[in-house]
């Protein structure tokens, strides 16, 4: 992993073919003139395949802006995003069908569970796979397996509103993992979980990273699980800096 402070404007080849995520000089500006706010500047991050990265920082530091930019939800004002060696964002311009790309390559887990309220727990996981062309039956079986592995298999047919916050979060994690994503982005995924479940989720993220070569970025305040990360970044006032270098990459 490396951090640079340089901002580049012309797209070039990624620095390594094994990088799951690479950002170069990401900058995000909201508003203009007197109301201009720089939410993120010169954010250049590389995450290797199989690497699990934590992003720490106080509220308003730009963590979510960074995460949503990588998630191709919130385009940067400038800078480039490479995922799996493919240039996907060059400034605010998408270089690919971002929705299709998200569906195939990116898994999300957010602070709030973000489940679809008119689907039950299993269907919430199943839909992500069905959208990716997996058959209804196969998707249902894998959804049940994922829920079982996260300890909510017995709640598979429950309405979302009947699940506790922790259970909902585990269903959201199952959905994020459903399509074997090459990039997993999580915004405080363990906030609603007890320490056991929190650690279990982090272990799961590590497994996904190791087994499928996915790059995982987790925004977290949960210091109980920091030892599970390969690399730790801190973000403040829109600027990213590394606080723990990877040892095993």
């Amino acid at each position: 992993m490396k951090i640079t402070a340089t901002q580049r404007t012309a797209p070039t080849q990624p620095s390594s073919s094994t990088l799951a995520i690479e950002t170069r000089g990401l900058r995000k500006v909201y508003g203009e003139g007197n109301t201009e706010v720089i939410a993120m500047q010169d954010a250049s991050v590389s995450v290797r395949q199989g690497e699990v990265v934590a992003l720490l920082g106080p509220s308003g530091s730009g963590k979510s802006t960074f995460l949503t930019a990588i998630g191709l939800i919130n385009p940067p004002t400038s800078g480039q995003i490479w995922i799996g060696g493919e240039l996907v964002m060059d400034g605010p311009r998408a270089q690919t069908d971002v929705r299709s790309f998200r569906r195939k390559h990116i898994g999300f887990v957010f602070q709030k569970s973000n489940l679809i309220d008119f689907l039950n727990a299993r269907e919430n996981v199943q839909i992500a796979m069905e959208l990716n062309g997996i058959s209804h039956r196969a998707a249902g079986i894998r959804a049940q397996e994922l829920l079982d592995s996260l300890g909510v298999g017995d709640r598979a047919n429950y309405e979302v509103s009947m699940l506790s916050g922790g259970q909902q979060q585990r269903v959201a994690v199952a959905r994020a993992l459903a399509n074997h994503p090459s990039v997993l982005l999580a915004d405080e995924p363990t906030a609603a979980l007890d320490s056991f479940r929190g650690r279990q989720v982090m272990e799961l993220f590590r497994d996904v990273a190791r087994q499928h070569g996915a790059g995982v970025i987790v925004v977290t305040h949960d210091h109980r699980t920091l030892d599970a990360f390969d690399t730790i970044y801190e973000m403040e006032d829109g600027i990213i800096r590394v606080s723990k270098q990877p040892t095993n990459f």
Partner: protein
Amino acid sequence: MNLAFKDIRKNLGRFAMTTIGIGMLLMIVMGMAGIYRGLLEDATFLIHKIGADLWVVQQDTRGPFAELSRVPNSLVYRAQTVPGVASAREFVFHTIQREHRGALLRMSILGLSWPEDKGEWLPFVAGRPLRENHFELIVDKSLGLELGETLRLGKDQYTVVGITAGMVSTGGDGMAFTTLLDSQAIQFDSPAEAIRLERAARDNRGQGSEVFLQQPQLTQQLALPASQLPAIATPSLSAVLVTLKPEADLDHVQSLIESWQDVSVYTTAGQEDLLVQGIVDKARKQLFMFRVLLTIIAAIIMALIIYTLTLDKIYAIALLKLIGAPNRVILGMILQQSLLLGGLGYLVAYTAGTQLFPNFPRRVILTNEDLLQLAIVVFFISVLSSLMGIWKALKVEPNDVLMS
């Protein structure tokens, strides 16, 4: 996985109530078309059923159903002499309103040409055709009379001997059939005092007339009711119905009779056209405008409901976009719900309508053509109704989920 059904499952109560509401609205739209068809059917049913080739009516009138028509009794004999005419018969038709069993009873009376016509052609559901040339009555079941029941019409007591089904006049009133003479007696019935006064006035005028002084026997005629006076009697037929021989040329016979100058002649199709244009056309326009208005209202309500349903799941839609659902999946969900709402509403309308319409006081006829037309309209308003929801769904961004 069908997201439209999943969402409906979650909001089943509201969706069901909305469907019923839309269904009721569509039922009224359906009913309006049915009422028009009923009017049309009522207006032309009798003409069809009577089955004459030509209708000879008072000159420059539009026939007995459209306005008052009076032709003399002798017209029957004149018509019979025309080459190509197989038969000619009297037609008397009028509407009366009487009190019976404490309630108003409105009926249209048609005189049958006894003894040639005893009403065998009528669609009987009970009883029999006429057997006597006086004081027997065949009535439509819509009048609510029973077999053997008697009712007083004019100065005479009539007995119901037969019940028909679906025999209504152009105005939707139930029909009653009796012999021609009886129907005329009912039509020209006058109170005794009125007859006395008329005779006295006539006698008084006669006293000063040279003709009556020279021919005293004429004064005997003055004692008869006006309708029976040969010289001055009011023409007592409504029309003469002509049936042609199979080989006769309709246009030729029509032009021959029209050349008499005192009558107008219509074919059955002509009579129907006159009725449709004169009686039914305004009602048709009025009903059509109501149908358009109600269809627009149904479309607006459907659009609002679909829009509200879309707003309710806007967060879920943003989430679906977040996990990569293509627009077609989201638009398909909204469109399917709209079509389902329209389709089920249509089904409710049809089911409720077929149960309720037979109880309406006038006939409501649902034709396949009208049902198909409404189904197509419902399809289009369902699609249109979904547009507002689709527009809203297209606008939402996945980022909205995370910012909320």
